[in-house]
């Protein structure tokens, strides 16, 4: 009886009694969701163009943030440091395509996946060798990102909006929209979709696979840098940050590995779902800490009942 009360009555009573807490929870879930979407987008772009599941996306988030902070520490202006970091990510994209992917064309997907695991270790070791393993502060103010907060009084309580969270959500939405437009409305975007549909057909009409791969790896680098700045502003720049990117996996399962809208919706569902579940059910019934696995349980359910995800293409194979 107590359990039924904790599941069906108490959470809703708390929501009603503390509307400010509910709104705060939804806001935190939305902010986390947009950042999950952003990280997931990095995976989707590369998967769509090359069929490669890029295991290195998480460490790319850390690596981009480390390069930015490291270059700025050399006395370079913050905005110039962003441009230099973008240059480094472009160089990384070129190197990955020429040194890792190109020699492995026509190899099974699992080989390419393993290659990205290798890339992860190279980026971890390279990052630690050059920048050291110590955590570093993100240059939030130097980048002109807002600090401080605004309050909104609701039902006798307050909802606190951190300005950095607002900025994170706005930037993530703009970037996601920009990438969606770029890949849907431009010539390069159409070429990417052609490559995603059929490599050989795309090659036969003169689309350069190498060029498209470089573009998507660079786009994934831009996404990684943005996610790195925003997430590190909430904590610090450290190698532990790469684990946050793992949250993109259930997002991908939910949204589908090839769908940009899927990555967005999936990210928001996971972000909002895990926060609401933890606060109203997880902490009271299961002792808390449910954020660590909630998203994966949702992903598991989707794998059982809708393995292609919400927006993924249904795979039909002739046997």
């Amino acid at each position, binding site marked *: 009886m107590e359990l039924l009360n904790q599941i069906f009555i108490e959470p809703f009573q708390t929501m009603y009694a503390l509307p400010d807490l509910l709104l705060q929870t939804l806001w935190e879930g939305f902010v986390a969701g947009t950042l999950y979407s952003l990280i997931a987008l990095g995976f989707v772009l590369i998967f769509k163009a090359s069929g490669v599941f890029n295991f290195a996306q998480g460490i790319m988030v850390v690596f981009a943030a480390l390069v930015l902070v490291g270059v700025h520490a050399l*006395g370079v202006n913050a905005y110039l440091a962003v441009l230099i970091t973008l240059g480094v990510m472009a160089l990384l994209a070129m190197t990955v395509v020429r040194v890792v992917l190109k020699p492995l064309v026509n190899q099974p997907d699992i080989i390419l996946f393993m290659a990205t695991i290798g890339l992860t270790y190279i980026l971890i070791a390279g990052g630690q060798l050059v920048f050291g393993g110590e955590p570093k502060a993100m240059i939030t103010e130097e980048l002109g990102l807002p600090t401080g907060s605004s309050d909104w009084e609701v039902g006798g309580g307050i909802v606190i909006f951190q300005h950095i969270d607002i900025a994170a959500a706005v930037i993530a939405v703009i970037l996601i929209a920009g990438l969606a437009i770029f890949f849907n409305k431009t010539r390069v975007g159409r070429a990417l979709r052609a490559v995603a549909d059929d490599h050989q057909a795309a090659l036969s009409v003169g689309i350069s696979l190498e060029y498209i791969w470089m573009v998507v790896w660079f786009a994934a680098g831009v996404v990684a840098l943005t996610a790195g700045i925003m997430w590190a502003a909430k904590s610090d720049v*450290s190698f532990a940050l790469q684990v946050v990117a793992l949250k993109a996996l259930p997002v991908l399962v939910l949204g589908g590995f090839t769908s940009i809208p899927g990555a967005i919706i999936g990210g928001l569902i996971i972000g909002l779902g895990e926060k609401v579940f933890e606060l109203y059910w997880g902490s009271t019934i299961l002792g808390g800490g449910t954020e660590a696995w909630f998203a994966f349980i949702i992903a598991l359910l989707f794998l059982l009942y809708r393995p292609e995800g919400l927006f993924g293409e249904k795979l039909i194979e002739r046997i």
Partner: protein
Amino acid sequence: MLLPERLGGNYMLKKMILGAASLAVAGSMYTTTPSFAEDTLYIPSLSYRTGAFAGAGTPIANGFADYFAMLNARDGGIGGAKIVLEECETGYKADKGVECYEATKGNGALAYNPYSTGITLQLIPKAPVDEIPILSMGYGLSAAAIGEKFPWTFNYPASYWSQMSSILKYIDSNGGIKGKKIGFIYLDVGYGREPIPLLDQLAPEMGFEWVGFPVAGKDMQNQAATWLNVRKERPDWMIAWSFGAMTPTAVKEAAKIRFPMDKFIGNWWSGAHADLEPVGAPGKGYLAANFSGIGTDFPALQDVLKHVVDAGKSQAAKEDIGKVNYNRGLFNAVIMAEAIRAAQAKTGKKAITGADMRLGLESFVLDEARLKEIGLEGFTAPVVGSCADHEGAGSIFLQQWNGSDWERVSDLIAPMTEVVKPLLEAAADSYVKEQADWKTQSCG
């Protein structure tokens, strides 16, 4: 190109050269059998300069290495025997820690300082078999404080349980603890869960209520929901058993929900410079326990600067000397050095063994007079080795973040030994009962 201080010039170049040199040395380690001169003292250092916790592991390893390097340079070692320190990278992973242990124990290791509760738990059963003591300084298994049950494991200067009791005492003396709600946010691994039995025991005795907020390892930097829970529960005080990136994230989230910082206390692994520097001003007022001094205003630290850092023999940047975790590593080396001296005096040997070292760890005296003699007056509370008490029941002090640095804000706070000791004894009994052929000792 001339590069500025922290990430620049000589520092970065030095790191790259050291990195390349480390690779070369690591390569050679696997192809040659190390041989050490007869009159040497071999100390393996299980360090983690890589991975998610490198921010803590690097300065600790530097402080540990630099004190021994100073003793070698200034005094020619300890008791006429040079110290040979060999680092082995664990990445804070238990399996790597065990690999390091197995790879180095045959070289005449005097003791192991694992710097990870996970690794310590793996090594505790090995210590009596290989006769090499474990010194888990202020971490590891709290029950190891009972020397009669754990002859080969030490956790000077205090166990986690003693530390928690000191923190609760501090709360009690700052407005009273009776009727208060204490929030306990912890890394959801063995280390973070370690003080829970003590909280369960003390809550009814002291009249407070406690509520736990576990944070999974992979959510260290993703704590928004946890702190929404804190906001819902409205605790009067928060205590953190965090590590690595979990600490700055927790402090930032606490600031975000406007939890009063001077009612938020971290343990001694949650209060390093690396933890609060990324937070800066919003963390002003946050408190943390500590048992080793801050800064370089100690003659021993000055000797380290003179003989090691200025001589270019340290891996640490000069501005990092004297920071919390650097001094923690240095203090660990001090206890090791004092135990070596005690063992040499007891056995009359220059080059001692692991078994001799165990005797040293049970008989060293680091009282106020000795602390002054070695240039560390006021650095820490006195610690005296003993057969029965392997934690020393050492006192802690609290330090407070002023927005840019740590400041000591309390006198030494002794643990509630009368409450903690019976719990430690019960836990030690329980551990020993589960082991087959466990050897205890009698301390008379």
